């Protein structure tokens, strides 16, 4: 659907270096990278707002490299929404559908404003609307012309954490409904994991790695990536509430996380598709099963041992590879070797669900 072939461009101090990328129809693709990596630049380049110095951009089988932005039929949303302050909400949404016959335009506005729950705001002015409202309006404005692809630049960054989680769910629901090919730019790996069908990590104007989220997170291709991601033991799966759980609606509850080869006891706030992360230092390693309060006790085999300074990093596989960090003392006390059978223990509350 979107295909970039060796796209390079320069814009002041920033530059894109030979970017190749493929996003298939209906995919939710996340571009992840630190500030200044060139993510926004890449998004603007796909939208046609910046010229490329070499390479090709294809959208829906059409080579759009030389096509002007206004003819690319790309929905674009900036981090700070950039609604037109001189227009009402309705006219902001209607901005991109001026060529439609009035009846069709009315229907489109009605449809997107219903989809994004904006009906009650249509005749308001932009000043005084909350961040969440402005964000939904910007999304409605981008969707009204029925673009071929949707490009979102840090769509959640300007929201407070509470609203952010809610909007993240709404974005997922919206994508489920519209199946719109989407590229979503973020610097937040948690956001990337929660949303991405596939993702690419960018740094200094280059794509460093692309692939399935858990694959990228589990096998970072470079030192930069490992450092940037900063967290190990991330798994994707489903959360199901425990049968006997008594907690009230809206509260955290005891649940089971299931990723196929791995089942964990967790404390969660909602059911369904989710990611979990367990910090290496939260995991205890022992040769015999521990009789402790930890709910998660997994048997696995030591696959790899790596000594780095005061820590020893072990890869242990109880179904999926876990990374565990031990001090040199505890490592020597345990007398472990590759191939040894060990137990991993950690509390349900040590499992970070998102």
């Amino acid at each position, binding site marked *: 659907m979107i295909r970039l072939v060796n796209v390079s461009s320069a814009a002041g101090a920033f530059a894109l270096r030979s970017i190749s990328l493929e996003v298939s129809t209906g995919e939710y693709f996340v571009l992840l990278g630190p500030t200044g990596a060139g993510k926004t630049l890449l998004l603007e380049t796909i*939208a046609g707002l910046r010229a490329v110095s070499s390479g090709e951009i294809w959208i829906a089988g059409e080579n759009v490299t030389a096509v002007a932005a206004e003819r690319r039929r790309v929905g674009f949303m900036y981090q700070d929404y950039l609604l*037109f302050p001189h227009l009402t909400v309705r006219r902001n949404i209607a901005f991109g559908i001026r060529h439609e016959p009035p009846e069709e335009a009315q229907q489109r506005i009605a449809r997107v404003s219903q989809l994004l729950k904006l009906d009650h705001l249509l005749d308001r002015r932009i000043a005084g609307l909350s961040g969440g409202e402005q964000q939904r309006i910007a999304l409605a404005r981008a969707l009204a012309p029925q673009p071929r692809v949707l490009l979102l630049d840090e769509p959640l960054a300007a929201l407070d954490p509470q609203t952010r989680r809610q909007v993240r769910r709404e974005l997922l629901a919206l994508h489920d409904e519209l199946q719109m090919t989407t590229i979503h730019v973020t610097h937040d790996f948690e956001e990337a994991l929660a949303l991405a069908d596939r993702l690419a990590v960018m740094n200094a104007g280059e794509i460093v790695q692309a692939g399935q989220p858990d694959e990228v997170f589990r096998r970072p291709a470079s030192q930069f990536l490992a450092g940037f991601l900063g967290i190990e033991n991330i798994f994707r799966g489903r959360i199901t509430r425990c049968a006997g759980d008594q907690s009230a609606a809206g509260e955290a509850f005891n649940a089971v996380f299931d990723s196929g080869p791995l089942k964990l006891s967790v404390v969660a706030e909602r059911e369904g598709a989710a990611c979990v992360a367990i910090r290496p230092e939260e995991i205890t390693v022992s040769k015999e099963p521990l009789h402790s309060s930890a709910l998660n006790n997994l048997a696995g085999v030591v696959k790899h041992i790596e000594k780095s300074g005061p820590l020893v990093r072990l890869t242990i596989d109880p179904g999926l590879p876990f990374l565990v960090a031990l001090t040199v003392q505890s490592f020597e006390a345990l007398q472990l070797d590759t191939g040894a059978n060990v137990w991993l223990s950690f509390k349900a509350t040590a499992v970070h669900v998102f």
Partner: protein
Amino acid sequence: MKRPTPLTLIFSLLGACVVVFLLAPLVKMILSAQSGSLAEALADAEVRRSILLTLVCATWATVFGALTGVPLAYLLARKIFPGKHLIEALVDVPIVIPHPVAGIALLLVFGRQFLGGRFFSHFGLSFIGSVPGIVIAMLFVSASFLVNASRDGFRQVDPRLENVARTLGYGPLRTFFSVSLPLSWRNVLSGGIMMWARAISEFGAIVIITYNPKVASVLIYDRFTTYGLTYALPLAVILILLTLVVFAVLRTISYRSTGVPTT
């Protein structure tokens, strides 16, 4: 109420001096013209003709200024190109040079024997001693106000708003008229008012190029040198009152729409 600090007191005193200095001549002049002489002056066909001529010429100058100066202002606000700083400095030059000098400079281009004058004479336009001469003199000395104000206005519009419009199917020109201009019209209008007011008050450059037909400022000078103060005064008062009224009305329009003064 808090007692004012010594600094506030000193500054208020000094500030009051300049306010009085600006206000006194205007007030004294308006007060010293008897209503009878004002009516008499208004009954004078030459006075009416010259005031009308001044307003019409200033309006034409502002229209030409807007047609060429607003696009220039947009380029200055948005683009980086070689010689940009030179052009920005050049735009300010008419403010700093003596206006008779500006008049002479214009004469050297638009005089009958010079290139500009010869070129326009093919279209039957002559700038010396004629209405078009008044318009170019006004344009030259006042365009800076419109260009500078508009440029500042465009600079305040986030270029990414224009980007959004582009992705919504608007070409660059339509984007300019749908986003850039509507979001900076207050600056453009404010600059236009300043330009128009400056054009009405111009004397030095006009008097070099076109003494006749006489615009209001030239007529005032002419009456003052020929007949003396008594005959110049009523006309001066009428001109001041007229420009103040139009100025106030336009400022109110641009002020009211935001509740915030723009310049």
